């Protein structure tokens, strides 16, 4: 399905590439790590203080109060220092990671737009969106919490481990022996938890899809009285999600206390063996008690380990997906500053022996050669699947031909800067997509500098003032998300006005007025031809009138241009066009 690159990278390589992409991550990292190390040291203050107080302060018959006071003060100072280091480290970490992630989001977003329509269309929109949102968030969770936890936890385990070995190697062995099995068990727990949450996410997706039908399909559900059926489907999906959530929660609930239980066993073991060692004179009471505190330092890192492992996996997976976007070459790339900027004015288009095949598919266009002179009206006709739309996409360089060349003004399209190309050649697709905003915002989209007067003038020239006056707020009418507040025909009107205002030298209409009434369509067609302005107009025709009005008709069949010439000429000859004409007229005029 997807044509986004999925590099088989190891986790380490993914991390390295990911970090390299956002240099902000590494800015000042050594200092941050140093602060993290200092902040970790603070964690062992309590066991050390307890040991010192018990062993030295409470050694004699009466407590050594001056010693205890000094020890406690030093420890308090260390605690304050730890807190300050912790604060500084956090602030640095948040700043560098958030900056890095914002850069990563921006890069990912831009690259999605650089991908060709071909690549874009292989992905579901939601999946592309999550590559610059959710996937990046997963990285941030790890970078700000998990990654740091790894450092702090490993540090804590190391320091506590070393301190234990110093106090008593025998007791240290008991503690390590108790915790060692967890190293094997915890990753398994983590896999269970991760699998359970994958299931939760999938069920959540199903549930949202079911609920969204009740919103998106509201008209159909009412028109066909299928409320009960929809409600049953939603109930089933909600219930499946709830069950899956509960299951995941149970797995966590049962695995989570394991570490603490092991901790208790370790404490009991330390008490049993420690007393024996103490009797033998091998350990002091203070050290033994300090051990009990040190064990608590073992518990929390191991408890978080499960989650950190999960975060780390999510982060690597997130990074892989973001990198998957960035690794996918922009197959239809802007030549950039090296490309040519063509002067505006009447435009010549030539197709030289152009062929095209979708990746992994058979050729859909074969050896198409055609010259389109400036200031002409071209109609492209043919049955569904004959190659009309492919022709349009190649002409606007939404795709590159797999054979031959497309030239404008004698220059290969691949050598023309996008900024220059998009200024001269504009296509209006059938689905008039609008952005959430006002009518004016949308019409201005292709020419942001246009004033309200420019827009009003354009609407007059297109003969749309009548329609505009009927709208509740005229040009300020909000169009809603994706233009939902307007009817299909009205959306097409706005999309046309948008292209008209952009004022290209060649305008390509891909059935752009299919939902508009005939009178308006004819009016629009005249305005858009704009032959008087020196503009070329190419229309993919779905109605006879468009072909009749054209200077030249290109007839496509099975990926080839089989006929070309003016309507009158073609209709007089036997062939594909005459057949098409016959079926059109019978549909349009019989009763």
């Amino acid at each position, binding site marked *: 399905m997807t044509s986004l690159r999925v590099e088989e990278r190891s986790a380490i390589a993914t991390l390295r590439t990911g970090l390299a992409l956002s240099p902000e991550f590494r800015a000042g990292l050594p200092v941050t790590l140093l602060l993290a190390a200092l902040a970790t040291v603070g964690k062992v203050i*309590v066991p050390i203080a307890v040991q010192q107080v018990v062993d030295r302060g409470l050694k004699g018959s009466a407590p050594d109060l001056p010693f205890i006071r000094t020890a406690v003060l030093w420890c308090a100072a260390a605690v*304050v220092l730890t807190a300050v280091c912790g604060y500084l480290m956090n602030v640095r970490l948040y700043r560098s990671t958030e900056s890095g992630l914002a850069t990563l989001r921006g890069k990912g977003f831009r690259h*999605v737009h650089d991908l060709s329509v071909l690549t874009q269309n292989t992905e579901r929109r939601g999946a592309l969106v999550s590559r610059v949102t959710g996937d990046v968030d997963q990285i941030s969770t790890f970078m700000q919490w998990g990654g740091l936890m790894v450092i702090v936890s490993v540090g804590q385990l190391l320091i506590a481990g070393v301190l234990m070995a110093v106090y008593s190697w025998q007791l240290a062995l008991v503690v390590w022996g108790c915790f060692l099995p967890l190293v094997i068990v915890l990753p398994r727990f983590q896999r269970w938890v991760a699998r359970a949450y994958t299931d939760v996410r999938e069920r959540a997706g199903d549930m949202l899809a079911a609920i969204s039908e009740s919103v998106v399909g509201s008209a159909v559900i009412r028109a066909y009285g299928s409320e009960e059926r929809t409600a049953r489907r939603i109930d089933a999906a909600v219930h499946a999600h709830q069950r899956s959530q*509960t299951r995941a*929660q149970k797995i966590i609930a049962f695995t989570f206390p394991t570490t603490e239980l092991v901790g208790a066993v370790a404490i009991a073991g330390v*008490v049993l063996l420690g007393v024996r060692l103490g009797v033998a004179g091998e350990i002091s009471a203070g050290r033994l*008690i300090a051990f009990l505190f040190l064990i608590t330092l073992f518990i929390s890192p191991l408890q978080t380990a499960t989650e950190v492992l999960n975060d780390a996996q999510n982060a690597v997976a997130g990074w892989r997906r973001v990198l998957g976007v960035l690794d996918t070459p922009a197959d239809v790339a802007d030549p950039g500053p090296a490309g040519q900027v063509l002067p505006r004015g009447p435009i010549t288009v030539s197709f030289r022996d152009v062929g095209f095949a979708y990746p992994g598919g058979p050729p859909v266009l074969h050896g198409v050669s055609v010259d389109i002179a400036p200031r002409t009206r071209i109609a492209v006709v043919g049955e569904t699947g004959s190659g009309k739309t492919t022709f349009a996409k190649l002409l606007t360089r939404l795709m590159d031909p797999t054979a031959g060349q497309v030239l404008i003004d004698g220059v290969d399209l691949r050598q023309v800067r996008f900024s220059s190309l*998009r200024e001269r050649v504009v296509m209006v697709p059938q689905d008039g997509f609008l952005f959430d905003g006002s009518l004016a915002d949308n019409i201005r989209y292709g020419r942001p500098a246009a004033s309200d007067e420019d827009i009003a003038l354009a609407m007059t020239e297109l003969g749309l003032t009548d329609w505009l006056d009927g709208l509740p707020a005229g040009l300020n009418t909000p169009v809603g998300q994706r233009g939902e507040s307007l009817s299909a025909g009205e959306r097409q009107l706005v*999309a046309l006005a948008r292209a008209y205002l952009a004022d290209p030298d060649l305008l390509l209409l891909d059935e752009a007025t299919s939902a508009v009434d005939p009178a308006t369509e*004819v009016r629009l067609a005249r305005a858009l031809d704009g032959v008087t302005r020196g503009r070329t107009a190419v229309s993919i025709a779905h109605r006879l009138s468009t072909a009749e009005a054209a200077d030249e008709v290109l007839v496509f069949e099975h990926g080839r241009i089989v006929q070309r010439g003016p309507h009158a000429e073609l209709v007089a000859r036997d062939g594909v066009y005459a057949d098409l004409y016959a079926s059109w007229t019978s549909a349009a005029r019989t009763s």
Partner: protein
Amino acid sequence: MTRAWAGINPLRPMIGMKAESRVPRPLPERIPRVPSEPDQRPSVMRQGLGVLAYAIRTEPGVFTGAVLASAVYGVMTVGSSWALGWATEHAVLPAFRTGRATQGTLAVAALLIVGVALVKALGVIGRRVLAGIMQYRMQARSRREVSRQYLRLPLAWHHRHPTGQLLSNASSDAEAAWAPLAPLPMAIGVVVMLVVAAGAILLVDPVLALVGFLVFPAIAALNFVYQRRLSPRMMRAQQLRAEVSEIAHESFDGALVVKTLGREDAEAARFQTRADALRDANITVGRIRGLFDPLLEALPTLGVLAVLLVGSLRLAGGDVTPGELIQVAYLFTLLAWPIRALGWVLAELPRSAAGWSRVRAVLTASGSMEYGTARLAGTGPATLEVRDLTYAHVPDTPVLAGVTFTVRPGRTLALVGPTGAGKSTLTQLMVRLIDPDRGQVLLDGTDLREAAQGEVSAAASLVPQQTFLFDDTVRGNLALGTRDPVPDERIWAALRLAQAEGFVSALPRGLDTRIGERGATLSGGQRQRLALARALVRTPRMLILDDATSSVDAQVESRILRGLREGSPESTVVVVAYRMATIALADEVVYLEHGRVVDRGTHDELLTRCRGYRDLVTAYEREEAERASLDAGEEVVA
């Protein structure tokens, strides 16, 4: 441990889902999305507590169980420090003093430590499982109620609310509303823990207790300040995260427009502005976390040091034993973490209140369609009467004004008018998807508003302009909501009439092939034909086609229309159309302009007497004629 209860959030707000069946609709209401300003916060907290109280009333059993389990956990946490103190006092220190270990006492100490830990673990398991059950039950309940309400509320209500908003009401808002239920039992357990701990320390020594009474309220207060400062900033970050995702969604949806108009850079800049705002908001959150997290960790540690200092003074005075001192110090390290649960609940409350108020807004939305009791019992084609129909999406700009006409049984009426004339709105009124502001729609003399629920949809079928297919099989999409199971022969007959038999039988699993968003890919024309078959399969007494064959090519369309007219008509048909062939099939034409009936009559009558109509339907021919005369003129000149 910090985020263990929060788990992983599987629901990200879904925005900008494809809305295919939307017909013209008025200005959408925008609900302000940053719900609470700091000055309103006490009331938001109160509202949050109200939400919790509602949940407790709804699930009293589960809640009580979770709280009891959590109380066990709280008591056992204090108990574990007591066990350790007991072991120190009775097993460890005597052994060191006497140089002799008593096996019995040691065994008891070890068993005590492990036993307490075991009971504590059971408490943790019970608390987590029950709290989860409660939270997920409440979430599921809200989701069921909200979606039921979506199905109940009239279409006009749907038109006033953006799709993305309705979806997040059911997903992220329902989730946020019940989020505090996860840490709530723990927080209550912590309160129990604190009371027991206070008692335990008081029993040991009132002076040491004083240290505790200073330190723990300080931790709680710090937590309170922390969460109050954090949560509005968290909400702001959450809001920005939604905006970033909204922009990405819209921009990728419109990728073709972005490309064809060369606006990639502008889009990237638009996205980066929000992404940078999100970055700044996250850094602000980070700064607060960065400040409070180390403070919250330092405070209990300082408490332990204070215990050591004060404790050794008390020890010198003979008021406490070393074992008791260790017990209190250990207690301090144990309590430091759980006490944060109070803050977690606090942190979720504003979000919960905001989420719940949005869920409530849906649940209490009024304007459900009222149904009468009349049955539309007749058989065969129905009579449709439209009387003085007026409808406005936005007050004072009527889409339809005083529309009146009648269609006799079995006849076909064409609705014709320019883009934006109100044709689609009229078709929605005719099947009572919306109710008129004034006037009536009558089917066989019965006002649609007096018909019982389900009667209108059983008698009349609308095929809307934009096709909506469910994520279901072909059969499921066609049979949709019919009262009795539909035999396959009837389904195939409908498919045949809709000219869809060919491609459906070519699908890999025929009628059982899944279609819709995640199913087989169909072309626009194929989807339209399925939507048409969906209407035909129930042999409606009135069939309304709203430009329902626009993506079907001309020959196929004419075959469909001829099929509909062949034999004895089973339905009264109203068809919105531009194509002359379609219009010419109609017995009568109603011509609309700006929501008013300008003329009605046969196609030929209107052609001769109605200028607007003539201009509209003959636009192509006139153009052709003009061009022909122009060409002729040119030839003459040449």
